[in-house]
């Protein structure tokens, strides 16, 4: 499933939009060095980390989208950088586990 359709079906907040591409897998984590070395391409990256480096890391790993969990809203710097880099930045209310299950159920990954 592509990111736009997924965001709609999941009822997520959309803080920034990017290329409408397919979510091929998922990865959960907050330590940025783990993420850049382990997250697969085109994944949905689920995190509670909220700072500007999240957008830089998302670009490096070429993920399909970032999902900020637990109702986290991006700070101004993160939102601005995500928009500048055309990275999908989504907001979810549930915790990382609940939202990972949602990604799995909706996207079949």
């Amino acid at each position: 499933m592509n990111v736009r359709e997924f965001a709609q079906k999941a009822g997520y907040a959309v803080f920034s939009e990017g290329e409408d591409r397919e979510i091929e897998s998922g990865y959960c984590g907050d330590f940025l060095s783990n993420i850049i070395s382990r997250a697969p391409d085109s994944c949905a990256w689920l995190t509670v980390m909220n700072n500007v480096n999240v957008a830089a890391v998302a670009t490096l790993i070429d993920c399909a989208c970032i999902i900020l969990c637990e109702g986290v809203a991006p700070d101004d710097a993160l939102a601005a950088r995500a928009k500048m880099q055309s990275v999908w930045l989504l907001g979810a209310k549930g915790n990382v586990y609940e939202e990972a299950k949602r990604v799995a159920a909706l996207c079949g990954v």
Partner: protein
Amino acid sequence: MSDCIRLEYDVDGDNFSSAGHASESVKRTLKQMGVSAASVRRVAIAMYEGEINMVIHAHGGKAIAEIYPERIDITLQDSGPGIADIDLAMKAGYSTASENIRSLGFGAGMGLPNMKKYSDEMKIDSTVGVGTTVYLKIGF
């Protein structure tokens, strides 16, 4: 040397939001040159970790990329505190980063190990109180 593209960047040591600009710029350049996605990713990760290290530990520094048809040489140079025990610093999970840095998602102790993992060659010259230079070679 005529077929080498040399890119040089100042890494701002007090500005986390600018960290990643050098690696993003190199990533764009390599993509435009038609380097494979897998190689571009290795370069971008190794270089990003180097940039972050310079911001966290050394108040910034210089990142130099020399791009050849078949490889990239990266030099990351700082005038920071130096690394007292390089073997220890290379251990996955070892970090001297502060609690504040960890709260930003860094300091997992994976920076240097990641740089090694994604490079074909890595060399560290460091003198305590003088600074550190990391040399990376990554083939395409």
